[in-house]
């Protein structure tokens, strides 16, 4: 009864402020917003104004005239441009509120990379506050991802989660609602794109943009050899000739391109396993590890990690929204319990 009343008036949000995408989960309604973390800024004289945010801004990425800059205010999982992040959050929160009749100052739970510094956490907290949040809670991303994936984090059993986001990959071993070991490497989806761009440049002498690289990754990217061969036609500017050229890439080439980046992720996973206490390591060996985040959608990444570690690897259902959903679940628990899953700062 009380709970329902509270639920009626609460407008709590869980925000997965990611490098690539920002997701907002509204308590009781699920994911209501999933947009790229991109802001287009229009510069007219000394005045800077926001031209577009989210999907619209992403479409502008790399295609802007001189007076508009499309930027991604988050880098490596943390804030790179404070004011722009604040404006972006403000826009997203307002967008969520327009469609619903929620109070303008919600309680907000924001996910932060587990290895982020106090300064970075404070920056995220303050930008959320600046965007109109009444109260800001922080939760470490792998914890939110584990909750979102449905892992039994509260049990005295080790659960391992590998969250591969846009900017960072978070690896954590969780037991009893706490992070036993966590590792955050600044390797993620963006690095895959960069690797593909570099590969294309090296082997085809052509420049491709971020958006194209991302498209290549999504369509033919794979992490483990042996799958069927896929091809894609892309166009890029030929460096030698200076004119756009069309060429065809196949999945083996992309696998080759991604090799180095994938190796660093695998190494981090292995190192986490090395560092884990034996009891938890045995739990993980028994049940396996869970992949979440957009990186988990890379074809056969689970196979690669399974092969490399010898552990069962499962991809969480709907890996892109795991963190936001987990944050949402954590948000629901804030009222009921002194919530130890939350980050201390």
């Amino acid at each position, binding site marked *: 009864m009380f709970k329902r009343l509270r639920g009626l008036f609460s407008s709590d949000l869980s925000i997965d402020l990611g490098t690539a995408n920002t997701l907002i989960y509204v308590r009781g309604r699920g994911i209501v917003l999933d947009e790229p973390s991109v802001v287009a800024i229009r510069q007219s004289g000394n005045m800077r104004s926001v031209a577009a945010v989210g999907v619209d801004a992403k479409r502008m990425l790399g295609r802007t005239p001189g007076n508009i800059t499309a930027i991604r205010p988050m880098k490596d999982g943390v804030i790179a441009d404070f004011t722009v992040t604040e404006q972006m959050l403000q826009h997203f929160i307002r967008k969520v509120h327009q469609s619903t009749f929620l109070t303008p100052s919600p309680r907000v739970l924001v996910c932060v990379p587990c290895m982020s510094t106090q300064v970075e956490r404070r920056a995220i907290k303050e930008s959320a506050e600046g965007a109109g949040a009444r109260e800001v809670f922080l939760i470490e991303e792998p914890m939110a991802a584990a909750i979102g994936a449905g892992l*039994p984090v509260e049990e005295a059993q080790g659960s391992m989660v590998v969250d591969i986001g846009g900017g960072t990959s978070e690896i954590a071993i969780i037991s*009893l609602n706490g992070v036993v070991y966590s590792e955050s490497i600044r390797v993620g989806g963006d690095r895959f794109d960069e690797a593909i761009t570099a590969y294309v440049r090296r082997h085809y002498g052509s420049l491709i943009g971020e958006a194209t690289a991302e498209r290549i990754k999504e369509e033919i990217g794979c992490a483990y050899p042996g799958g069927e061969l896929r091809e894609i036609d892309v166009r890029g500017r030929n460096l030698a000739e200076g004119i756009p050229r069309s060429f065809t890439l196949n999945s083996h080439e992309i696998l080759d391109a991604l090799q180095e980046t994938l190796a660093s992720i695998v190494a981090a996973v292995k190192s986490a396993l090395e560092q884990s206490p034996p009891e938890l390591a045995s739990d993980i060996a028994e*049940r*396996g590890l869970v992949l979440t985040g957009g990186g988990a959608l890379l074809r056969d990444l689970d196979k690669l990690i*399974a092969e490399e*570690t010898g552990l069962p690897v*499962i991809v969480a259902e709907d890996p892109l929204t795991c963190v936001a959903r987990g944050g949402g*679940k954590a948000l629901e628990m804030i009222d009921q*319990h002194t919530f*130890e899953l939350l980050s201390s700062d």
Partner: protein
Amino acid sequence: MSETHYNDPAELAPQSSPGELLKREREKQGLSREEVASALNLRPAVVDGLESDSYDEVPVATYRRGYLRAYSRLLGIDDRSVIEAYNARFGNIEGEHRVTPVHVTKPPSRLGAWLFKLATLIVIAGLVGLTLLWWQSRGGNDLLGIGGNEPVAVDTLDGTPVTEEPEPAGEMLPPLPDDSNELGLVDDEAQIEPGSDVAVDSERADVAPSSINDEEETSTAAITGDRSPSPSDAVATLVPDAEVDMAPETESEASVAEPSAEPAEEAPAEAVEEAAADPRTLELTFNEQSWTEIFDANDNRIFVGLQESGTQATAEGQPPFRLTIGNATGVELRYRGEIIDLGSRAGSNNVARFTLGE
């Protein structure tokens, strides 16, 4: 990423369990259970469990579904159809695995929080109440003090001699009020003149103590330092004179000498003396800054305000007067020619509250 291989529509029949789907597909592809188990890094027992739809080996729903999906992807069939079959059979309820903290750290529950807030409020209210009570009790003390002062004031006014010289007071006190009343009456009738008489009286009064109060001075040590007994005595002794003197004078002078027939040089002296003796007049000399308020018998505020040091003021009204004199030690109050000792009437805050002229 969605590789949909609907190998056989018959397999997607709703009645087929996920285990059956997987097993059939595996057998079709000619894979052994062990091969699948090693490919998935799972124990063969777990694969067995998955195929026979008994999930004792995998208690957590997330892992079950994860294994099912991994298995179906390994076999190259659409994992969604397997998951749908699983959901149809076991429901999606397990997916909504609730996370509950394990450490029952006895969190401050909702009720607890409310109680805490309530308790805090009560404590604050209690504190405020106590403060008020204390303040009021202090104020009450003041009131009591005033109340206590009042009788004292009455006593001291009429009875400074009374309290301080018990024996003669008994005899002298009763006639005093009557006399003063008479004096007042007389004064009312002839306001200008009595001064002279009183002046005479006071002269006499000055003389009187030395002559009359010789015995008293010797008998009661308290009186010696205090001039207060003398006036009362003087008044007492003067009373007959006043009656005698004034009666004719008022008659004679009120009719004749009223329009300042008297010599000019006498006037100031007269005025002072008049003020000094007149029971309707209070004379205040402020040696220090002081806030003073005086009410007369009709509750009219006859004098109020912050007085600068070095000023003098007179207040007239119907006695008795209720006085409140701040910074009492810095004020000289003269009433009926006597200096009223304010220092002894002042409270701890150096404010004297008393009644004069009853």
